[in-house]
């Protein structure tokens, strides 16, 4: 961006940037490769550096129709998608209203919206569980979504607030004087203008839900199964080959989303 263009950008890979790249590769990508190796390991005993025996056992058992993978995968997908769409839908009007909020009350409203980022979310969820039980939300995906929203909404608000900070609300005035109704302005001007931020907010909210372990457990009991719960028990059970396979399945969607949206992350967040 403009800041970068003022400083000379090195054309070739300097030794320094090569070293940094190698370190990042080892630190970030290395452990992920390790998952792949483990998922293909038949037997891999200490102190062997590579599996003594390769096998598709873990994958076969993870992907077979009667394994417990499919229900949690579906559960994570469902909860993550519904959470992401709902959180973004709730955060959009809030972030738009915060942009240009008059007076000092803005800081209070903002704090109230972002507090769950700093206060532990489970502390609130434990307390409200009695109400969820009463309402029949406990042990249901809908209840889990409600709990996930507590963390997902603040993230979406944070992302969209940053987006709206760079948004000129006079665009909406211009549209009104050109004959667009309030509804037309929202759909034809506001939303398209912040499209990048909306996509990033959707991804963030999905990631938050996809990663959530504790809230799912508290509200969903053992009834709502998601991938982190499954992976957790596989790791605790000591089956590292299966953990490797499950881990890769678990990792793929968020990594894909991140790779697709990475170019937009800088402009929106």
């Amino acid at each position: 961006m403009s800041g970068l263009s003022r400083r000379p950008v090195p054309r070739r890979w300097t030794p320094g940037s090569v070293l940094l790249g190698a370190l990042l590769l080892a630190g970030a990508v290395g452990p992920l490769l390790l998952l792949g190796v483990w998922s293909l390991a038949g037997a891999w005993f200490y102190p062997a550096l590579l599996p003594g025996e390769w096998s598709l056992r873990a994958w076969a058992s993870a992907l077979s129709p009667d394994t417990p993978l499919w229900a949690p995968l579906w559960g994570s997908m469902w909860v993550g998608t519904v959470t992401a769409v709902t959180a973004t839908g709730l955060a959009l009007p809030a972030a738009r209203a915060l942009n240009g909020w008059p007076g000092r009350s803005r800081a209070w409203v903002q704090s109230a919206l972002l507090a769950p980022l700093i206060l532990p979310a489970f502390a609130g969820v434990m307390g409200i569980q009695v109400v969820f039980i009463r309402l029949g939300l406990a042990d249901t995906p809908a209840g889990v979504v409600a709990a996930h929203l507590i963390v997902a909404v603040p993230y979406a608000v944070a992302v969209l607030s940053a987006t709206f900070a760079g948004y000129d609300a006079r665009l909406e005035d211009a549209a009104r004087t050109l004959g667009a109704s309030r509804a037309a302005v929202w759909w034809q001007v506001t939303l398209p203008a912040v499209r990048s931020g909306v996509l990033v907010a959707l991804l963030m909210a999905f990631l938050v839900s996809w990663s959530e372990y504790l809230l799912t457990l508290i509200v969903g009991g053992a009834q709502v199964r998601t991938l982190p719960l499954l992976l957790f028990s596989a790791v605790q059970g000591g089956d590292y080959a299966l953990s490797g396979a499950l881990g890769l399945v678990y990792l793929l969607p968020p990594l894909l989303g991140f790779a697709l949206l990475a170019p937009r992350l800088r402009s929106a967040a």
Partner: protein
Amino acid sequence: MTRLELDGISAAHGGHPVLRGVSLSVGSGERFALLGASGSGKSTLLRVVAGLHPPTQGDVRLGGRSVLSVPPEARDVGLVFQDPLLFPHLSVAGNLAFGLRQRRVPRAETDARVADMLARTGLQGLGPRRVGALSGGQAGRAALGRALITRPPLLLLDEPLSALDAPLRRDLREWLVREAQERGTTLLLVTHDQEEALATAQRIGFLDGGRLAQVGEPAELYAQPATLNAARFFGSLNFLPGVQDSADVMTALGRLRVARPGHGPVTVTVRPEAIRPGPAAVNTLRAQVRQVSFAGAYWRCELTVPAPGMGGPGGQETALVWHAPPDAPPHAGDTVTLHLPPAACWTVPEHPEDRPGA
């Protein structure tokens, strides 16, 4: 092509009053400019007319009909902002077509009118471009085209294109005036730039602290400002407080013959270019030239008129600014004889210290 009437408009911004009882009438097809310093309430006034800012008092009438309850999208009033404010997600053609799309103009007609407007604004071939790829001048023209394409009978201009450099702005202004004339569009322009106002408008108004201080033809506001601030705004540099008694005012310079008779405390304002070299029957004075600087069309001379100025009682040392004609500039240290033509000695009924900080 519609008549705009503002009737006692007051408006507030975050609890602070911005407009205080502004009444104004702009005729059908007229080009009117509102001048004022920043913070005088100009932009708010336009937003009130467009329906984007509700007034706390008063009425807005278009073609004789009150439009206070009409939402902005239904007022059919075009508004061009300071910045182009093109929709970033639409192409140039998409931006031009926006207003027509809201009016559900058929596709074929929309395409034809967009093509026509692209040609009129000199943007041929740029229709499919993303607006981010436009130069400042092209974006400005696209913004004007977007506002004009729906043929609004009233076009509001809020310091349009003030981000552009002067020659570009002048071209656009000339084009805009031609377009407006062709269609009989009523124009209301607000600006702090006198040159822009004079080049565009048939009448101008001066907005000061949320009040409409004066309305008139450009020459009138120049030569006969109604208030001190108006005089300052339109370039008068010499202010001589005094007490008027019929045709004369007693000032620090002495007895000064002024343009119109009156009584009581007044301030005489004299534009620096109105001061003439040489003696005359009245208002002749001898002054010392302190400093001379070249200003292109004239020489700016800072003068000191020693007491007793024009002679007689009550005189004291006074500073004046004179724009001397370019042919024979005086030198610093010279003593010159000048006169202030009575017709150029305009009086306003207030003293500078009446309005602190003004």
